[in-house]
């Protein structure tokens, strides 16, 4: 298998799905002539043309709302929001229209749309451009929220998302584009709504996703040097959330740490922790710990910013606390 970057994996998924199905098209800011602000759609405009690679105005409600309308009448739009921070200005369409149309009209409509967007801090972009608000979007029934942590999953999940008949928020991480990994060539599909064990272990369960999967895997490597074997479970999809591999792992290790990049309050860690207590209370040997971002708007200064974001050392410390 080839070692490729996350950027390439996502780009390949889009390219293959557009080749496979004429109804798939891309719309968003700078996706065309520019080639995508993260260069994911570089070369698409020349190959697929302006009909299928559509540059939009800076008007997020029109991007998401337009994609919803096109999806309702039979197309399969991939709407790109340059960053997840801009999703807030399209919030009504993301959480109040797309996930509800099918239900409200008694099953008459479907909205096969993917919103591709980029979240995460660590690039000194300041408080308004550095957020990881994934949990907010996972709050709404009717929307599916996918956030891959490896190139292989990014490719397989994006291809599945484009083929799904439901509205899907596909959240990439801005500091993962250069991350390399093995990716099967050609038809590679990963099911949405399935968590997976990325690294087996017996002493402690680490449940995480996206960028924090990579951080957690590094922490697990460090811990292994001390003889601590952490089992790392990648959630991959935040809604619908598949707890089975997490619970199964926890029943074996009886100890867990949940790692996310977003703020701790009302977050993914809160949800996973609560579900572990609900579903496996008899197996708890130590209080479950949450590792998350400090509860501050992210500062510009690099040192301050990094001190607010969860680091490998924070995961290691949390693991040691539960052991």
């Amino acid at each position, binding site marked *: 298998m080839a070692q490729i970057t996350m950027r390439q994996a996502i780009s390949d998924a889009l390219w293959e799905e557009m080749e496979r199905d004429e109804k798939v098209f891309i719309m968003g800011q700078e996706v065309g002539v520019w080639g995508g602000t993260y260069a994911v759609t570089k070369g698409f405009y020349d190959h697929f043309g302006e009909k299928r690679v559509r540059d939009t105005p800076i008007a997020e409600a029109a991007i998401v709302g337009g994609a919803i309308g096109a999806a309702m009448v039979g197309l399969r739009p991939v709407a790109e929001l340059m960053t997840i921070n801009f999703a807030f200005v399209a919030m009504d369409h993301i959480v109040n229209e797309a996930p509800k149309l099918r*239900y409200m009209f008694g099953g008459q409509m479907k909205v096969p749309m993917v919103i591709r967007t980029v979240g995460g801090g660590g690039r000194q972009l300041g408080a308004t451009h550095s957020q990881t608000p994934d949990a907010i979007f996972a709050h709404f029934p009717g929307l599916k929220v996918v956030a891959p942590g490896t190139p292989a999953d990014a490719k397989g999940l994006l291809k599945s998302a484009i083929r799904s008949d439901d509205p899907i928020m596909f959240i990439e991480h801005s500091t993962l584009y250069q991350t390399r990994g093995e990716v099967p060539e050609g038809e590679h599909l990963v099911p949405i709504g399935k968590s997976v064990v990325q690294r087996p272990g017996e002493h402690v369960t680490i449940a995480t996703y996206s960028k924090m999967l990579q951080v957690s895997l590094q922490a697990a490597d460090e811990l292994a040097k001390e003889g601590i074997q952490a089992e790392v479970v990648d959630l991959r999809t935040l809604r619908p959330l598949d707890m089975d591999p997490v619970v199964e792992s926890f029943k074996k290790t009886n100890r867990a740490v949940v790692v996310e990049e977003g703020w701790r309050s009302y977050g993914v860690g809160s949800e996973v922790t609560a579900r572990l207590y609900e579903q496996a209370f008899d197996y708890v040997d130590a209080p479950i710990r949450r590792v998350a971002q400090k509860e501050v708007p992210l500062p510009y200064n690099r040192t301050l910013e990094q001190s607010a974001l969860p680091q490998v050392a924070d995961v290691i410390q949390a693991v040691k606390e539960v052991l």
Partner: protein
Amino acid sequence: MVLIRRVEERAAELYQQGLIGGFLHLYIGQEAVSTGLVATRQPQDRLITAYRDHGVALNVGISADQVMAELLGKATGISKGKGGSMHMADVTKNYWGGHAIVGAHLPIAAGMALGDKYMDSDGITICMFGDGATNIGFFHEALNLSKVWDLPVLWVCENNQYGMGTAVDRHSAVVEIRQKAEGYQIPNLRSDGMDLMNVIAETEKALEHIRAGNGPYFLELMTYRYRGHSMGDPERYREKDEITRWQKNDPIGIYHRYLLKEKIATKANLDKVEKEVETEVEAAVEFAQNSPEPAPEELYTDIYVEGS
């Protein structure tokens, strides 16, 4: 138009009896607008509107039974009792709802028109909204996109003079709403929305313009709602005289006078229609009241597409 009025008058009574919950926004007074649009559109033309949607639903051919059952939240309602007053659609009739967030359906309408253009269909999306919706960002993003991409969409502003209880001159910097379309270089017209034959004539021209490949068109139709914004409206913002003045210009009255003058119908014909409608509405109320509640398991259906 007579059917719409009688269904809604009856719905208001049922609301007061507590049989209809939530909001109920009546269309009484504005009937000529959607009647004219629906009479003029072709089968491939899509229609989408805001929350004042019962009249539009009846016009596209959703039965009084299905409308009434939806208002009563019954399983036989057009949206299986899960949508209510503001969410009625029938995609088999190319009618895409009933949308409750002011202005949010405008970008969606632009997207539907994009779909038709993308698929080389000659369908046009007709998107209705009130004057109150023209101040929100959605409106401007959607109009701009429709012009930038030359989308086949007919924007129809039903100017009923008030955004809820705030008069146009108190909520909009330009009182002539069509001027906002001017700002996006979208051809536009302000016209009488109380006279059905006028609505039909202007809609025909607008659809012809769009179908010829000229991109969007904007129609501002002047109309008036006789009832409150919704059922809980104290109506402190207008005088009774104003309503009476508009009622002299009633869309049903104008149309009936036209039919009689042109000898298209006789008084006897019109009386017969009125009687038939009364029977139809009473049957619809009975149908709705006798219909079952949605099954408990309906709570969990239609959230995601099965197997997707």
